[in-house]
């Protein structure tokens, strides 16, 4: 996958071998799903050397998710590059999916408090220390040493798509063009595989992609536009570190209080 994966486990009692097993899992995924290794399952399927009936259960799972998000996004996400030749690249899902599975491995081994970061896609479980949530920063698009926002994450996944480090590597599969509305978009939700795929699709959809993510149950989005504005779903606010616990859309309930304040203003 050409990326750095860190696994930060805070359970003192966890068997160190389980970390080794997680690392082996990532190496295994890299071999099978790499788009660079000619003999990987992805490459063989892409080249037509492998029939869709003969693929592994894992590949079936990944492709099913790719198909699902393809439908949900009306084609803004597509693991298949339908040019000539047709090429399969499920990388946008595989990274997140492999981390979800790694989390399940750690969980089965008794891990309760950990954070996995795969090239900027983050999954957290439990707490880094008692009484404190994991704090996941969203990289500032212009200032690499700063963050734009900090997300408080308990059992959550955070995925960001953007074009600021490796250049524009996401194209609109429907047009072949480079999306131009967002610098980056961050998606928060229960599954990193989905958050990963959603952030890719939403990056293509641009500003409208933020609302599109908001329509997916359990997921929120935080987008930074090329005009340096932040557009986020209302649910995102309560996930941030600076939000009062629960500060969110209580506007309907706030209406009487606003009314009372305005009554004074009109005195």
């Amino acid at each position, binding site marked *: 996958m050409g990326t750095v994966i860190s696994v930060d486990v805070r359970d003192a009692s966890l068997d160190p071998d389980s970390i080794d097993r997680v690392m082996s899992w990532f190496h295994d995924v890299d071999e099978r799903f790499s788009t660079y290794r000619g003999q990987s399952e992805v490459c063989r399927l892409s080249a037509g050397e492998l029939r869709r009936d003969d693929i592994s259960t894992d590949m079936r799972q990944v492709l099913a998710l790719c198909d699902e998000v393809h439908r949900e996004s009306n084609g803004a996400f597509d693991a298949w590059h339908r040019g000539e030749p047709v090429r399969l690249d499920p990388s946008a899902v595989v990274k997140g999916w492999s981390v979800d599975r790694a989390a399940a491995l750690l969980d089965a081994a008794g891990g309760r408090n950990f954070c996995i970061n795969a090239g900027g896609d983050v999954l957290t479980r439990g707490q880094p220390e008692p009484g404190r949530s994991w704090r996941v920063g969203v990289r500032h698009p212009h200032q690499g040493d700063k963050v734009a926002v900090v997300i408080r994450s308990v059992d959550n996944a955070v995925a960001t798509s953007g074009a600021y480090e490796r250049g524009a590597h996401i194209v609109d599969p429907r047009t072949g063009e480079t999306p131009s509305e967002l610098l980056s978009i961050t998606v928060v939700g229960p599954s990193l595989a989905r958050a990963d795929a959603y952030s890719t699709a939403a990056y293509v959809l641009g500003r409208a992609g933020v*609302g599109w993510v908001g329509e997916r149950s359990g997921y929120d989005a935080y987008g930074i536009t090329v005009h340096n*504005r932040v557009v986020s779903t209302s649910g995102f606010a309560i996930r941030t570190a600076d939000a*009062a616990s629960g500060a969110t859309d209580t506007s309907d309930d706030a209406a009487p209080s606003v009314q009372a304040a305005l009554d004074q203003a009109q005195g």
Partner: protein
Amino acid sequence: MPARATVAIIATIAGIVLLFSFQTPDITATGPQRSSSVRSSPQPSALAQGAGPAPTPSNQPSTTATPTPSAAASRFKDGRYTGGDITTRYGDVQVRVVVSRGAISDVQSVTLPSDRQRSAEISQEAGPMLHDEVLQAQSAEIDSLSGATYTSDAYAQSVQSALDQAHA
């Protein structure tokens, strides 16, 4: 109070719903704050139309950011006004409204329900309403970073050296 003012207020609140935005701290955040400032702007068009019901949440993020005094809003006196403490099934809600140049320039939360789960439910019922604000940079203590595709060996080496120290 003329009925029209009430209509305008309703529309203003609708505008607040759509543009409900939060402030990112410009100082190092150390933890959850007791009360968060909710910066918002009335939508001039909504005020002018005096539309009754709240607009349907839209996929299209709104870019309205600068409050513009309108005829309906300019009847407000400048100042800061704290509303009543309203008890709801989700908890107490109290806000402070800041009026400048006759228009609502800010709505701050004094008290908001603290039950995160229930608030999340309200949010889900309400659908994907969008916040809009100006991007700010902050230095903050974080455990992990999202958004960087770390491809360089330098990064890996740096991580390794840090880990070495951590284990020393």
